[in-house]
């Protein structure tokens, strides 16, 4: 059977080229290129033109002013601090709630486990925005939940300290609470995955060698679940630090997080270089630890 040269080329090389090339080109044009533009933009100069930036000409090719402002202006530093603090507290709380939940999931019977895991995953499939919104309903001054907390507080403290409602909305507390709520499954799932893989005979071996259950946990379970803790922690911390929606809905407007700053610099201030510089700074803050971690993980894998 005579086969064309194209067909032969396609079978031998073209097919592979297509398989790799199509997604590759797409990502280069629509992800890498825009990203590189932002990086370049962060050293451009803001001008009142359209588009509002300029390279060269009357302006320096590399303008480091946006970065100097990021590092010196209190507005940006405070925003970074708020973001990191909120994200960190949310991550720790997720870990404290998620770890025992994940451990509990490995200990319940098989059929229960299927159901409970589905209940953990279910929120993933429902709207993120609506999950935030659900808490707005609970935290409002007149809500039953706020009322319950208020009554609880009023019973516990002396009369002088009595309050009419708990001030929850538009606080960093609200931001952290909602972050914990929306990101908890991100913590539970990798933890569960790493705990479920553990060999139960290791627990028995430790017990057999004289460890009480809490010692077994500290000596055997916890150290082996560290990869899960790190993975879960990053899955919570990274999106939480760059969060835009949650603080815009339940946060304190006078203490903006970094996402809001980027949005405002770009939209209201029309200062693209500044917005880009803040974005690059956020990225460095987020991505560097991630890369170090993945390098470390690759090394650990390689050692095995």
């Amino acid at each position: 059977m005579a086969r064309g040269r194209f067909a032969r080329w396609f079978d031998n090389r073209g097919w592979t080229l297509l398989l790799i090339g199509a997604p590759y080109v797409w990502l280069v044009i629509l992800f890498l290129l825009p990203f590189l533009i932002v990086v370049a933009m962060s050293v451009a100069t803001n001008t009142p033109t359209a588009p509002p930036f300029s390279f060269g000409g009357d302006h320096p090719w590399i303008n480091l002013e946006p970065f100097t402002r990021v590092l010196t202006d209190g507005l940006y530093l405070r925003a970074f601090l708020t973001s990191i603090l909120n994200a960190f507290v949310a991550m720790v709380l997720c870990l404290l709630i998620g770890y025992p939940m994940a451990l509990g999931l490995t200990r319940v019977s098989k059929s229960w486990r299927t159901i409970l895991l589905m209940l953990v995953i279910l929120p993933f499939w429902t709207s993120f925005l609506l999950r935030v919104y659900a808490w707005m309903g609970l935290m409002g001054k007149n809500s039953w939940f706020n009322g319950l907390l208020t009554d609880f507080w009023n019973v516990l403290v002396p009369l002088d300290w009595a309050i009419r409602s708990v001030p929850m909305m538009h606080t960093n507390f609200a931001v952290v609470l909602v972050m914990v709520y929306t990101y908890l499954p991100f913590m539970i799932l990798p933890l569960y995955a790493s705990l479920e893989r553990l060999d139960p005979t290791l627990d028995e071996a430790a017990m057999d060698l004289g460890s009480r259950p809490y010692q077994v946990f500290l000596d055997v379970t916890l150290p082996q679940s560290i990869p899960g803790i790190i993975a879960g922690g990053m899955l919570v911390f990274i999106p939480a630090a760059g969060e835009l929606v949650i603080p815009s809905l339940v946060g304190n407007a006078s203490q903006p997080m970094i996402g809001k700053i980027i949005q405002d610099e770009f939209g209201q201030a029309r200062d693209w270089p500044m917005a880009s510089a803040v974005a690059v700074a956020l990225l460095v803050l987020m991505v560097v630890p991630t890369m170090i971690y993945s390098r470390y993980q690759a090394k650990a894998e390689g050692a095995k």
Partner: protein
Amino acid sequence: MKRSPVFLVSILCFGFAFLYIPILSMIVYSFNASRLATVWGGFSTKWYVSLLSNEAVINALVLSLQIAVVSATIATILGTMAGIALARFTKFRGRTLFSGLVTAPLIMPEVITGISMLIFFILMADWIGWPGQRGFTTITLAHITFCMVFVTTVVSARMVQTDRAIEEAAMDLGSRPWQVMFDITLPVISPAIVSGWLLAFTISLDDVVISSFVTGPGSTTLPLLVWSKVKLGVTPDINALATLMIVTVGIGVAAAGIILHRSEKRRLAEERLAFRNND
């Protein structure tokens, strides 16, 4: 040594209460007759009626669904190609960059992805006159880009688990590489492709931040509409909308879960039976 872990069970109860009480409360209040969204004023379904006659909501929903179907489909095609390429071709020039490109969007803060795409679209319009107007096209392009990497993750995880020998067997029996993919690889990883599509669809349908950057006048997706309404506070019709969406998704996921569970159970039973008969 099975001891009843009382502490673990109680924290599980607490955790699930924490996860589900806000949603249940929202569902209950969607049937609230009162205009004040947080004060109970009797049972009513009027918010559902007003929601379904709200043209803006219906239009936004239709737009969101269109974008989600188109971007999930294209993202699944591209993402599957990337997943197979990464799992099967261990050595090609630029592989490191490629594998970086399929993971970076996963961990990139949404704000940065959104802003970089917006700047890209504005500059492209400035330089080559495209895209003339931001809206359906730009949102879809952005959604395809960050949805495809989720599909890639799901697909390549599945590829790693499948036995390479079955593909080699097909090639040995005379199939060309592309035939192997359509005859063997794709059918074998089809569950991963389906769940990749569903994941991409959900992510696209749910996206607020990136859409908010790359959208244009007149293109309001449902999440964008909800966001703008919710910024003003809690309203009962949003409760109703939320309830409808959550119940729809909940039923869908539960049904899928039960079907999967059943078929898995049946497979196990058949396997056992086969073993017994062959003994």
